[in-house]
């Protein structure tokens, strides 16, 4: 019997779902939050690590000259520059790693096959996870920004910059998500979860200039930086928060347009690749293997 005949024989006709999709996404988000809240010490560790990072870069800023930061257009405070990088690093991790992490965890616990066999679309479960990580990262942002202000960071916080920040964060996640989807496809294919996602996050953060302006990179490395959506996300968020400008400012707007182009072009490609790998894994029955 061929694989296709077997699938047809075992497949059930799709029933009309009564439950609202948003409710399902909400439920998936609550599910992830409940699981994560069980590991309170890990959450404590996560927060403490970030706070120590803020203090480390605060101390480092005392021996940093402002010239290069200023030349790149980010004012004269290295601490402010680094603080924004640290504050949004959780959103970066969420968009680049949440899907691969979800798949890897389900693979590891042997529940991936079961979850994917339920009538609920995996995209819904994933969106729920993504929402959880988005809210989790927002808590970090809410803690880090006031802490940075207390330590003397020069951030302009008003209604306009806050609205701009929200829009830019959504664009950041949308434009980086395709890389996260490709990373998840690699997890399904190669069964090597954490290292791939982790490496992608670090390579992205390095070339996009999380801890230093990309203007100090050699020109060949800068070309690579300019190919990453995160470079534009970081630039727009920094420029807006440091100078207090809205999304309509030409520099921020051009960054936002690049992020939109990235999302529109790369999202269908990433989904197509993921779907192919996912269908292959289902056909071969290798979803639960790790």
């Amino acid at each position: 019997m061929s694989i296709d005949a077997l699938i047809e024989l075992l497949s059930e006709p799709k029933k009309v779902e009564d439950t609202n999709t948003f409710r399902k996404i909400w439920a998936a988000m609550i599910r992830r939050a409940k699981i994560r809240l069980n590991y309170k010490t890990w959450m404590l560790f996560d927060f403490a690590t970030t706070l120590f990072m803020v203090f480390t870069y605060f101390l480092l800023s005392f021996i940093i000259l402002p010239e290069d930061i200023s030349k790149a257009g980010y004012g004269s405070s290295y601490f402010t520059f680094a603080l924004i990088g640290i504050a949004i690093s959780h959103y970066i991790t969420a968009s680049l790693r949440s899907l691969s992490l979800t798949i890897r965890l389900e693979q590891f616990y042997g529940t991936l096959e079961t979850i994917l066999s339920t009538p609920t679309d995996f995209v819904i479960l994933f969106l729920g996870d993504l929402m959880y990580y988005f809210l989790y990262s927002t808590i970090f942002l809410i803690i880090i920004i006031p802490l940075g202000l207390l330590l003397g960071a020069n951030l302009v916080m008003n209604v306009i910059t806050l609205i701009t920040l929200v829009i830019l964060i959504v664009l950041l996640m949308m434009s980086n998500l395709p890389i996260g989807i490709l990373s998840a496809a690699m997890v399904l294919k190669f069964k090597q979860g954490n290292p791939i996602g982790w490496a992608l996050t670090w390579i992205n953060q390095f070339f996009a200039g999380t801890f230093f302006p990309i203007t100090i990179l050699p020109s060949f490395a800068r070309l690579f930086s300019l190919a990453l959506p995160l470079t534009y996300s970081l630039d727009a968020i920094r420029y807006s928060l440091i100078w207090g400008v809205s999304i309509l400012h030409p520099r921020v707007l051009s960054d936002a347009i690049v992020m939109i182009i990235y999302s529109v072009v790369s999202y269908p490609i990433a989904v197509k690749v993921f779907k192919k790998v996912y269908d292959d894994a289902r056909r071969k029955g290798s979803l639960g293997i790790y």
Partner: protein
Amino acid sequence: MSVEECLKVLKFDEKTHGKLVFLSRTWASWYFQLKIFFSYKMQLALEVIDIVLSTLIYYFISFLVSPQDLVKLGYSPDYVAFAVSGIALSRYIWTSVARLAHKMRHEISSGTFESLAAVDIDNFRSWLLGQVLYGFTWSSTVFFGTLLTGFLLGAGFTRNPLMWLQAFLIVILVVAVHSAIGIMAAGMYIMHKQLETLLVLMSVVIEFFGGVIYPLSLLLNYPILYYIALLIPFTHGLELFRRTIIDGATLTSPMMLLHLGVLVAFIPLVYISFKVFEHYLNIAKKKGLLSVY
């Protein structure tokens, strides 16, 4: 039958075990762990990327650092050497402090820890020692990789072989003291399973107060933080290591002697750590808690 009687009946005859057998088992425990690590080739490749990237980050940050400020704070103007030496030595912290507990969690969750701990005590000690040695091997590889990358990027390290010998002795001392904390914590972990996360947190705290990427003297503006930093052995180890490989300072200078004295004062922890570990292991064996997680 009491627990003690039960243990006596099931216990192995320890006399059948010589030193040679103990060492070969230690070697086997080290070697099998190494083989597992080398079987994950992608993980290996990513470790290399991690070494290079983390060094490169501080290489580029060094363009922003003011050499005059570093000199004012009592260090050499070479920030690449400063940061690379800090990152390299900090690679030992997690493996010394938290890796053993992490490994035990792995064995416990895989259901193999009870079998390991149920064998005679010599076997278990050799396993434990093999794991500590593996952690040291792995960290040393990353340590040398980081120093080499830094050197290739132009970090100004001393070229005096005697200074490198001194640096090697300092590293051994730092690892011994922090492994003692790790062994003690691993013992406590058998009873208190939440401890692993706290150990990872502890390594973050140690790295922060040790001044891995910033000069410790900056903490003088915050006296409480500065005094906390002085209570941590890693702070003294890193100062000794940096002064040795960057400035070529010998252990005879008063400041170096002071740091060395503080570090040596922590050495009795090594003996205490094994006692603490065995104490907790025995309690767990008697209460049947070895496989609980």
